[in-house]
């Protein structure tokens, strides 16, 4: 394949925190949609979208489950927006040890938003569909990406490289020499 510019669809959920009423219909719908079998159980704690809310501070921020991270942040920003203070955590979608958002309540495994790209994919994510105040809106955007050419590599090469990265070349060669299977071949 020739390297060069390609286009990619980027799926975006726009969040207008001024429009959020804090109803958490998004949480209900997400947890139902991702239940197995589908819709069989409801549990906002399993939702991949959560509304961070604090009625004393008039704070309502829907956040989407992002990547798992094994470590907490070493510090946090405090943002002041329109005179109200928000912790950086209010905008962070990481499944992390410092809080129990986006962690399966019984297995402890991290949850991640899949934009409802199941089979068949939904026209728009479930959370957006149920948000009738337009705090969440869905946008698809075509972006041009200048993709770098990628070398095709075999499984052995990839595997060996990983071992070399972790233990060093010497150790890998030594291990190979010592392995009885290596001698027999």
């Amino acid at each position, binding site marked *: 394949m020739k390297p060069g510019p390609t286009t990619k669809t980027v799926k975006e959920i726009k969040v207008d925190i001024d429009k959020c009423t804090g109803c958490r219909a998004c949480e*209900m719908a997400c947890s139902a949609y991702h239940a197995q079998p589908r819709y069989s159980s409801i549990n*906002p704690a399993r939702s991949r979208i959560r509304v961070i809310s604090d009625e004393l501070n008039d704070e309502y921020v829907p956040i989407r489950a992002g990547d798992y991270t094994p470590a907490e942040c070493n510090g946090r920003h405090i943002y002041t927006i329109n005179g109200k203070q928000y912790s950086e955590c209010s905008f962070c979608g990481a499944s992390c040890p410092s809080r129990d958002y986006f962690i399966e309540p019984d297995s402890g495994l991290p949850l991640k938003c899949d934009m409802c790209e199941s089979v068949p994919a939904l026209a728009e994510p479930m959370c957006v569909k149920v948000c009738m105040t337009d705090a969440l809106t869905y946008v698809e955007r075509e972006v041009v990406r200048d993709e770098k050419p990628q070398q095709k590599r075999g499984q052995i090469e990839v595997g060996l490289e990983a071992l070399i990265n972790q233990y060093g070349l010497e150790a890998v060669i030594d291990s190979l020499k010592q392995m009885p299977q290596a001698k027999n071949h």
Partner: protein
Amino acid sequence: MRYAEAGFDLEIDLSRGSIEKVATDPDLAEFYLGGQGSAAKLIYERVPPDVDAFSPDNLLIFSTGLLHGTPAPAANRTAVNTISPQTNLMSHSLFGGFFGPELKYAGYDKIVIRGKAPDLVYLYINNDKVEIRDATHLRGKGSTETGDLIKKELNDQKVQVAAIGLAGENRVYMASIEHNHASAARGVGVIMGDKRLKAIAVRGTKDINVANPAGLFEISQELHQKIGGSDGNGDWMAVDEDDSFHHNHFAWGNARTRIKNYWSPELQERWTKLKYDHMDRQTGCYNCPKKCRNVIKWPGRQRFGYKCYGKDTYHMAAFQELDFSYDILGLAQEYGVDSYSTPQVIAFALELLEAGILTDKDFPDMPADSRGRFFYLLEKIVRREGIGDILANSVSQAAKQIGNGAEAYDHNTTKKFEQLPIKLGKVNPAYFLMIATGEKMSITQIEGSFPQDPLPTREEREEFVSKWDAVPDEKFKDYFLNREKRNEISDEATCDIVDWNEAMHYIDDSTGLCGFVSSFRGQFGGGVAYHMNNIPQVISLATGIAMDKEKLWKAFQRIRTLVRAVNVRRGLRRKDERPPEDHWAVRDEEAEQELLSKYYAFKGWNSEGIPTRQTLERLDLGYVADDLEQRGILAAGDNAAGGQAALSQKGEFQ
């Protein structure tokens, strides 16, 4: 597997400090639904009539509704039931928000509290971990402040907290339980305070399963779109700034003065600006697309939320403007007092001062202006200081304690409970029955399905009924089509209309559905999302119970009758069933009593308003009949008036 329900109640004895998780009978949901329905059964069985409201044996029950935690939208009203010291009857109370669904996700359908803690405690429920914790450090803290402190203490912003303020701690009868800018009134905050329970904090991360997942999700999404996308649901006053309805028609002061042309475009413009200058946003309750609560930040006060008439009660009682309500509501929320009854109690006290029944000596250092006086008396009441100690017992009981003619100023209560301040001309028969016989105490908790007033022309009425999906029976369309004036309607039709209005509230308060998408809202426009023709299907899909309209109607009758039995056993009789004498200017005692008799007969109650054995047995309440006979309340064999057998036969009046 249990569907829609968690299947367990949490039983807490605060005297002994014991906590039990008790499995509940799966068969009961079909009979009592949940919420207030199953709470009434617990109260009937476990709180005999000799148990005083302040006895440790009185129960305080927080109930989820049958549909809480399911995808059914707007199922989020938590029911709180107990015996009220104000009325000595069963308290009916509800609050919106997130508490009930969270409790169900924690694995419980109810919290049943008995006993009294030695000092202030709070209850912390985190799934299977349940603790009674010290709350002495929260003494005197405001209700939302308490919620905030508990969240910080538990290091969990996701717990849902229901708390009392100073009023509840001091056993003020008008005390409320506050949660997330929602409030449970009518006699429950006082008992929570009496049990020395400052707050309940709940966190739940368990699944709720439903019987027909895809089917329920689909109909729930249709209802969600209907609620969010139509103006037939929710509190339209959250967005319509014209509140001439309350200001021109309701009475000001101590439910005395009607100002028919109060509202003006100038006022509306000024108040609209005041509102939007101070409103953060409008918020909603769990899984409901409406945004009925206006959240206001007023200088020097905690943020507070209000709905509908809740913003008018203080300034109308004090003959002030909206800015006064905004100023006092944030404080009243933190103290945890009901905004319906409290302003009436204060206005009542000021009337007694004006009449010379109370004197300046009863109000030391009270400011001279109306605003200052309301703030002064609010402080006295929530602290039970001086005259406040008497006023804290509500209008009716305070009038008796004060004596010296004060009883004449207690003119707006029924069954010792403050009614909405409405004074009208001619009797509206349905409203006569609802106010007289209601056991939910406030007309807003009883009225709601059948429009209050006829539409002026036959064409308009035909247009209305052509889109009226909510009617449980075609006869209601005829009643509406043929009604020219609000007070000209047959007694038979009146009984039917009251029955339907009641039915929807009893069903909502047991399923947890909100009246603004169901029982209360249909009278305004007819286009409610939930009604007798679709709630059975929602219940069936959620629970797996084969529910239909007839069964659901019977469940309403059963719960209504059981609540009546609780109250009859505590002494409620025909003589108590009187709307305020001045509610209407023109009265006809004979016709009213005849209507009341017909209503009792229609319900299958005897001439004292006591359900007969035949009625009780038809509603599977034979145990109640046995008990009432044993107590000598029902004479053995008293079967006068058998009542209506079922919805389909309701037209055949006995």
